[in-house]
Every structure is written in C-alpha cells, then in structure tokens.
C-alpha cells in the first residue's frame, strides 16, 4: 500500500466539491446572503435607521411598488430591514462559530493527545458545560453584560464549543495511535511538532465541517435572543423583526410579510450552512458516501471520521 494523500489538494478538493450538488447549493445560497450583507447600503431601498412619519392607517402597509415587502409596525420598509438584518446573523454566526472552534478544537486536541489527568480535567469541564442548558445561560449572561453585538458574539461563542471539543478529542485519540505518529515520535519529534504536522492536518477537515455546522446554531441562538428582546436594540436583526411582529399585533393586522420575511431569512441561512456543512463532510471524508462493506483502497489510509452532526 503506497502513501495516499491524507489531505486533498486544492484542485482535487474543488473538483470533488463541484460535483457535490448539496455543497454547491449551500455555497450559492450563502454567496447570495453574503452579497446582500456586504452591499446592504447599495441594495436596500431605504435606510432602516431613517425616521419615518406614520399614522395609524399607514402601518403594516401591504407589499407595493414602493415597499416590495410592505412595511412594519413603525412604517419601516421590511425589505430594507431584511437586507440589513442579514449582516447581524452572518456576523454573529461566523465569529461566534470561530470562537467555538478555536476553543473546542484546542481543548479537544490537547485532551486527546496528552491523555491522563489533563484529559480527565478537560473532559469533565466539557461535560459540565455540555449539560448546562444553553439558552437560559445565554440569557443570564447577556442580561448581566451589555447587549452589544460583540458581547452576544462572545457569549454564543463561549457556550457553543463543547460538542466540537468532544468530537476533536475522539478524532485525536484515533490518530495518535497511528503508526506514523509512533514513527515520528521514535525518531525524536517533539509534542508540538507531532501536533502541528501529523495530528492537526488530520483534524482540520473535521474542524472545517464542524465550524460550518456550528454557524447555523449560532445564527439560531442570536435570533432567539433578539426574539426575546434581549439583543442589541440599536441593530436591525431578523430575530428583532420577529419580536416586533409578535409583540405588536402583526397577526391581527394580517401582515404576513412581517413574519414570513425574517423567518425565511433565518431558514435560508441555516439551510445554506447546513447544506454546505454536509456537502463538505462528503467531499472531505468520502467514506461517508460509501457503504462500510465497500472495499476501497482510500478507506484504509484515510482517517476514520466520527459522526460530525452537532
């Protein structure tokens, strides 16, 4: 058995990715959302922060040429709010997930590689964090800190790393028993070298897939907080749009556009990241596509991936 590449090269990756329809669909969905977020001031027909004159009869205006998705309880353009709202979801999702992955990845690798007392301490701490219900904890922390966007990113990121830590530890445990690790160690490689050159590259695909999937969770967490009225009130977000619609009688006014639009946005992003995540998983770990009885040379040399669903 000759050496198979343990990581796909860039070109090979793209070739494989392109053929994966799920991954491609997710990527296109996210590209659209990212485009909307980045160019929000250009695309959005109105500025959400601008002051609007309203009367009791002008609220919840139906979709029209002037307001393609109607207006909300304060007479503001729903489409513009929707476009600007994608910024919050994407920002929180990406940054919070990055924090989670850095913490979870580091703790998982260290625990899995070092083993012994260090592992026990880290994993018990992870277990404790894992059993604390996320939402109440998030609500409490946000309540005692200021609801700035940065704080919300930190809180969601600092709470969401536990599953990553467990997955990465399991993966590391399996990798460190490999022959090439033993070989490296026997020719005198240090811990850091082994971690950097042999373990981390094999954990990386798992981290990538996991981070994409965690973004979905972070987006849902942020929307939940905004819906409860606990997020930064000065920034338009989809959860906040839903909160206003719910609290201020959108249903009674039959203003479906105020409820459907942000809901659609959340589904779009979460679905996009989930599709991308699963697609990436298939591309980076072809084993998931094959039945375990299929005999394929790659199976032998590619690392065994544990289930990566969060």
């Amino acid at each position, binding site marked *: 058995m000759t050496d198979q590449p343990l990581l796909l090269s860039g070109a090979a990756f793209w070739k494989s990715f392109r053929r994966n329809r799920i991954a491609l669909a997710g990527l296109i969905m996210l590209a659209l959302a990212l485009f909307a977020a980045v160019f929000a001031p250009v695309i959005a027909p109105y500025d959400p922060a601008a002051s609007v004159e309203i009367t009791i009869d002008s609220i919840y205006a139906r979709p029209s040429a002037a307001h393609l998705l109607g207006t909300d309880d304060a007479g503001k353009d729903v489409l513009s709010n929707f476009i600007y709202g994608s910024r919050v979801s994407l920002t929180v999702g990406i940054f919070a997930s990055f924090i989670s992955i850095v913490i979870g990845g580091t703790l998982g690798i260290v625990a899995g590689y070092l083993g012994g007392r260090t592992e026990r301490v880290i994993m018990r701490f992870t277990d404790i964090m894992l059993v604390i219900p996320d939402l109440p904890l998030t609500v409490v922390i946000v309540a005692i800190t200021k609801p700035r966007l940065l704080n919300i990113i930190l809180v969601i990121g600092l709470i969401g790393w536990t599953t990553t830590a467990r997955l990465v530890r399991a993966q590391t445990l399996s990798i460190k028993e490999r022959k090439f690790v033993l070989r490296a160690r026997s020719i005198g490689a240090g811990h850091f070298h082994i971690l950097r050159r042999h373990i981390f590259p094999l954990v990386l695909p798992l981290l990538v897939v996991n981070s994409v999937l965690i973004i979905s969770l972070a987006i849902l967490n942020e929307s939940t907080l905004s819906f409860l009225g*606990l997020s930064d009130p000065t920034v338009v977000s989809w959860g906040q749009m839903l909160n206003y619609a719910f609290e201020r009688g959108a249903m009674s006014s039959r203003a479906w556009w105020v409820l459907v639009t942000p809901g659609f946005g959340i589904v779009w992003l979460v679905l996009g990241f989930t599709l991308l995540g699963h697609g990436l998983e298939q591309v980076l770990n072809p084993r998931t596509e094959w039945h375990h009885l299929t005999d394929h040379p790659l199976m032998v040399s590619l690392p065994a991936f544990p289930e990566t669903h969060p």
Partner: protein
Amino acid sequence: MNKRYTLLALLVAFALVLTACGGQATEAPPSGDQPAGETPTGGEPAAEPVKARIGWAGSPDTLNPGTAVLSESYTIFELVYDSMYQLNLDGSYSLELAESAEVSEDGITWTFKIRPGVTWHDGQPLTAHDVAFSYNFYQQNTDFVYLPVYTDYFASVEAPDDSTVVITLTEAIPNMESQLIFLYVLPEHIWGSLDTASAAEFENAEMVGSGPFKLVGYSQNEFVELEAVRNHPLYNAKIDGAVFRTYTNPDALVQALRTGEVDMITEMPNTAVPGLRAESNVEVVVGAPVAPEVSDIIFNLTNETTCPVADGGECTGHPALRDRQVRLALSHATDKQKIIDVVLLGLGSKGTTLIPDGLGVWYNDAIVDYEFNVDLANQILEDAGYLDTDSDGIREMPGGGDPLIFRLNWPNDSTTAPREAELLDEMWTLIGIDLELQALDPDTLTAVCCPVFDFDIIIWGWGSDPDPGFLLSVMTTDEIPTGNSETGYSNAEYDALYVAQATELDLQTRIDVVHQMQQIVFDDIAYLIPFYAQSVQAFRTDRFSGWVTDMAKVALEDVSSLLVIEPVP
C-alpha cells in the same frame, strides 16, 4: 400617611401596570387550553340563555378580594360584590349599597343607611352587620395585599342596627368615597369563621356576593362565568349573564372577536385597530381608561445627600442627570408627538406630570409643556458647559470629563418601550447625547431601580388610583428609602404640600394644592412623561346593542355596560 400604605399600594399599582403591559403573556397556558364551548358548565335549560361573551388577555389571580392583585380580579369583584359607593365612568361617585350617607360637622363620623331588600346570592339578607364585619375584617387582616390600606383612617366601624353603619375616623379625610369603593362587602355568614391565616388562603371559589351578577363557573386562565341576578333591588340586567374568556395571545384575542367567538374584547394592541375598523360588524372604542396608566421616563437624581445608603443605595446615576439644565435639554429634544405616533399609533395624548389627564380635576391642564426644539436644547447644553471637546459627536461633562453616555433600561415584557427607546436614541443623538440601550427582565429592573438607584434612565410606568394621593407620594423625600421613589427626587416645599393635601377637606383647595405640586415637579423635571395612553376596546355590533361608549372613560366590561346591553334581535 404611613409607609405601609404606599408600599402596598405600590404593589397593586405595579401589578395593574404589569397586567396592562401584557405581563400575562409570561404565564404559558397549558397546551390546548383555549376556552371551549358556548357555555362551559353544560347542562343548560331548554331556552338558550343569552350571555355576553367577553374576551380578555388575563385572568383573575384569585377570587379572594383580600389577596387579589391583578386588575382582572377587580373587574369580577365589581360585578359580583357591592360596596358603599361606586365609581362612575364620568369620574363621579354614587351611592351603591348605601341609601344615604351623612357626615358630622368635624368630618370624623360617617353614618350610612343600608338599602333595604338586598340579599346575598345564596338568599340570606344583607344587613349593616355584614358591612361592619367586612370593614373590620379588612382592617384586621393586615397581610391582605391591597384593601387594608383603605381602612387606615378608620378608628371604629359599628352597626347599631340592621340598617345603619357608623364609621368613626381618626382624622377627617377629603377622599372618603375613594377609600370605600374597593372595600367590597362580604357575607359575614361565610367569612366570619375565618381567622387571619385561613382568610389569606381562602380561595372563595364559591364566591357569594350581593351584586348584579353571581358567579356560576370559574377556571383560572380559562374562563369566568357569571349569571344575572333576577329581582335585584338595584339592578336589572337585560342579558342572562356574561362569560369572560382568557386568550393569552393578543392576536388570538383579536381573531376571536373577528370570528364572532366573543362579543367584546377588553384590550387589544393598537396595531390591530385599523384592521378591526375595516371589519364589518365590529366597532372599535378609544377613550380614557378607568384605571389610567402613566408611562414615565425616570431620571436617577440621587446625590450624596439623598442616596439611601442604609437601604442598599448605590446611586451610580450619571452626574449630568442631576443638572436640571441637562434634563431641560432632554425635554426640549424629545418629540412627544412622534413617540405617540409611533408607539401608540396616535392613540394617546402628550404627558406632562405623573398625574394623568384621566384623573379629571386632579390633572393640571394649565402646565405648558417644554417646546420640542432641538436647537434650543443644544443651546442649553452649550451654555451649561457641556461641550463636545473631542469632536466624537458626544458631549462631555463641563471641563472635559466623562462623556454624556446614559444607560437606558426598560422591562423586556413591555410592548411599547423598545420602540420608545429606539426613538429616544434617535432624538437625543441630535443633541450630542448617547444612550446605551438594554431591556431587562422586570425582576432585574426592580433590583437595579430603587432604592438601589443603579441606573441612569428607565422607561417604566404606574397604574393609578382614582385619587391622586398615591402617585403624589411617589415623589416625596420619605419614599426614597422605601423604593417607591424611582427618581430620588427631594424637595422640601413639595413634601410640605403633600402633607397639606392629604388632610385638606375643601375639595377646591386640595385641587389647587395638587395642581401646584404637579407644577413643582414639572419645573424641576424629575420625570419626563412622554404620553398618557388611551384605552382601546372593541365589540361586535351584531350580537348586543347599547354598549356605553359616550362616557369620559371607556370600560365596556364595567357594570354600566353589562347592565344595559341587550341582544340584537
């Protein structure tokens, strides 16, 4: 007036505000708990009784008048019990159980003659002994939440015979009627056997009263069913009864009226008004509420001398807010009409002081509000030395100290405060003031508010009695350590006037004093009162006619309407 009075009244006032703000939404209903069926009790006679079906967002917390705090409970008490006086929708009082009332020259002894022929719903006659028992009962049960405070000035209550009640006061008071309206008369033959502990736990599920309606069915958070009492000496309802149904979601409440599941709704989001106005067979009524709510923007005014350190005072308020010039600038920079337009959709009037216009004569309508003028506001800050020395758009304390960044908090269950906060942020930015906005759950807000004073500005509110006494007490120096005072406002002249009005017997003189007190707090800008909200109700025109909609105050669920509406043929 002692502290307990105000503290307990605070709890009630607070509860009223909470219910009104939609606090009930936090009580998650058991799944599938929508009120079902036409008449939940079943087993009805052949002729279908005609009952008014009323939808509301809350439910009584208990049927025991001693322990009830939610306004829904009091709505039911008003219908099932009688008291000596009743409060009319035009703000006046009229005799209810009493046939006549006489007061001695010195104002100390009140003699009431009880109307003959009134019986309890179980058939027993109602006598003066029941009245005397009830008043004494409320006075003795000091752990009752709300009602004992109204007996604070009673030295003794006696019933010399079956039809006479004599109340002797400790001192003459100007507002006897408002003390008596909530003191519901209870049947001695049922309540007489209860001691203090059992009275507080008594559920009163079989509620026996003497009013125009009797209770026939009750399930908390589901429904309250009432039946009209026939051959009542005082009342003769044209309907057979009324059913109050609870809808914990405001949208579901509005929908129930639309589909004809209920005939009237007691409250609704203002945003639903245009939709319902467009509906055929539905009429929307807007008017002054019976128990007005005041929305206030609270400034933390505490300083070294007024901070209630012994009671946990931390007094971390921004020093700039202690300067009247800053508060004056904030007043000039606040476009109240804009707030009313956005937050209330126009269904409200501009506020000036804590005494709302709904209190009629007590409201000082001569106060001229600070004009909305951003340039003037900027000039005031400029003149007072609050300059933007580092050109970041935010002014600093005179001499280049801390920037004028204020924390602004509100209860996260409020449906109006988030939009209001958003607008204040927008308006005050224009005068170089930055806000840190944060919604807090009501418990946390109470904890930072008072008497801790760990805040800068809070958007909150009060529910009001018909008498202005309680709301006036909120601004006295004595209330700073108790936590009733939310601002830490202290003014010796105001305090003296408060004492004077409490025992002023001449109505006009008391009104003048109350007006003067409002002018003082308005001039000192202890609060910024953005608006007085109107009450919004709606009813179906195809079921009952005769709803009372032309009074100064709107309360379709009040006796005044339920006694006169009749089925549409």
